[in-house]
């Protein structure tokens, strides 16, 4: 224990002596959490569109009025030339074109089918899907009202009311569909993981590059003492970062903490060991800091993008979903969201925690094993 204490002291001295490191470790994650949490949203708002209204009827005006009133669409320009409208879309000035043919109103009022075209810039496919769904639902509502009106006029009192099904939506856990509530825990996990894996990934290979590792290797220090001494400082830094982040989430972002904070901290502790042992493992397999960082970066990008932070894991193909079984970040993000937002308890998350423990043991064991005080 005493020896570990000395290593700890040394690591902390070294980390904090580098003046540039303090802000990187504690300020940068906070700033990123604050800024990026607002960025991660699919909320659709203010889609600029071009109107090509060849009809100029009361009905066509009603359509544009409804679209603007929905709050999702913003009439940016009007034209009678479809080519000009397409040019605007080519230049990314607008994302949607609404084309209303000239006998539109007449056909509608006479009870005929009246076509109307919507062109959507689908370069961003997910956004295009949302634009489509929203515009369709506005237009369909309008159509239904209009049809009923026309029919009423035509058939008078004989009009038999069409059947309708009322849809009553209810969003649990996040009734306002607030994206920030969902993203903050996930981004926090990613930030803490990055700090952890990069710091630990650089560490041993750095001593190797400088040459101090040899001096350590001739000392009677035990391998496990060395590894724990290397792991613990980053673990403590990671936990501090996490606590700052959680405080920010609770009091800054007003995120509900439905579940137990102790449970989150327990899982966080295990998770950090997993991530940092993995970093140390990378550190023992590489020869220069450059290599180590590149490898760590690569793994990190995969973990993050396949971690369900930005795109739902459910949408991935099956093989990719299976890959996430080996992704500690995916587990922790999921656990964070379940416990904080849904109030899940030990019962619901225990399997994932066991997986994390397994991974941690594996990585730590391999890292200790890979580190050789005596080379062959």
């Amino acid at each position, binding site marked *: 224990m005493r020896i570990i*204490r000395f290593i700890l*002291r040394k690591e902390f001295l*070294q980390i904090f*002596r580098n003046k540039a490191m303090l802000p990187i470790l504690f300020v940068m994650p906070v700033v990123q959490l604050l800024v990026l949490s607002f960025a991660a949203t699919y909320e659709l708002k203010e889609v600029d569109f071009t109107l090509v209204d060849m009809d100029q009827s009361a009905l066509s005006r009603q359509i544009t009025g409804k679209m603007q009133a929905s709050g999702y669409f913003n009439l940016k320009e009007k034209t009678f030339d479809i080519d000009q409208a397409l040019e605007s879309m080519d230049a990314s000035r607008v994302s949607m074109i609404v084309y209303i043919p000239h006998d539109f109103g007449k056909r509608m009022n006479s009870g005929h089918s009246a076509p109307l075209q919507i062109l959507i810039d689908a370069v961003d496919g997910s956004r295009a899907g949302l634009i489509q769904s929203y515009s369709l639902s506005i237009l369909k509502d309008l159509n239904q009202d209009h049809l009923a009106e026309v029919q009423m006029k035509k058939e008078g009192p004989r009009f038999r009311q069409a059947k309708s099904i009322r849809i009553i939506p209810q969003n649990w856990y996040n009734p306002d569909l607030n994206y920030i509530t969902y993203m903050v825990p996930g981004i926090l996990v990613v930030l803490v993981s990055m700090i952890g894996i990069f710091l630990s990934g650089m560490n041993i290979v750095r001593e190797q590059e400088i040459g101090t590792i040899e*001096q350590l290797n*001739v*000392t*009677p220090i035990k391998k496990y003492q060395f590894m724990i001494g290397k792991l613990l400082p980053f673990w403590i830094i990671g936990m501090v970062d996490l606590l700052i982040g959680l405080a920010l989430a609770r009091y800054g972002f007003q995120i509900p903490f439905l579940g137990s904070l102790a449970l989150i901290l327990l899982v966080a502790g295990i998770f950090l060991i997993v991530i940092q042992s993995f970093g140390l493992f990378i550190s023992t397999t590489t020869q220069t800091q450059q290599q180590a960082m590149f490898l760590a970066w690569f793994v990190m990008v995969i973990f993050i993008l396949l971690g369900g932070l930005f795109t739902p894991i459910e949408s991935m193909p099956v093989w990719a979903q299976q890959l996430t079984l080996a992704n500690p970040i995916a587990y922790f993000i999921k656990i964070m969201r379940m416990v904080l937002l849904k109030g899940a308890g030990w019962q619901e998350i225990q399997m994932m925690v066991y997986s994390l423990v397994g991974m941690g043991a594996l990585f730590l064991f391999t890292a200790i094993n890979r580190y050789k005080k005596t080379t062959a």
Partner: protein
Amino acid sequence: MSELAIQTTELTKKFGDFTAVDRITFDVHKGEIFGFLGANGAGKTTAMKMLTGLLLPSSGRAAVSGKDVFTQAEEIKKRIGYMSQKFSLYDDLTVEENIQFYGGIYGLPDEKLQKEKNEVITSSGLEKVRNKLVRGLPLGWKQKLAFSISILHNPDIVFLDEPTGGVDPVTRRQFWEKIYEAANQGITVFVTTHYMDEAEYCDRVSIMVDGKIEALDSPEGLKESFSADKIEEVFIQLARSGKRGDA
């Protein structure tokens, strides 16, 4: 006959086809200053790494302080000190912090650590810079500090790999005074060097050529058998016959 600090028999290290150290056999007595000479690339550092437990030998036998290098490397590490060719203190730690760290790693009890720390700092004349980062010290000071730290835990043997490389003559002299001091305390000193005048300070000297030990005797004995005035002449005679290295 005194006890043996180091004893090797046919110790060999191969890297693939290349035999870096070729069946070397020699003994080092307790308390002696043993000079380990050889041209660049002759295999000195490799041999030293095997003896310090950093590198596993390919074949042969060796015991350091009575412990086997194959099976008891970690035991050996408790009993030796080592100062490598590459400067190996943490240059982003202060003088005191370095001493504190290595002392702690070797398990010195707190009180003793404090005492030793002050002693090292006074004896190396580092009082004024004790709270300065090692990075800013002149090389000679750093080397003196590194040596003091390598014998902090009072080891049986200390291995010095070219400890005075790039150091000015005055500091080199001071450095050797410290080596003698250590030897007087009963620490066996195993030292490699390129300075032939330093070889004269040793009790016994071995000269490696192409992975083999070609000569081993006291400086006087060597000069006599090679009918030379200086060790330097002996060295040049032997090293010329070597095929590798640049000497």
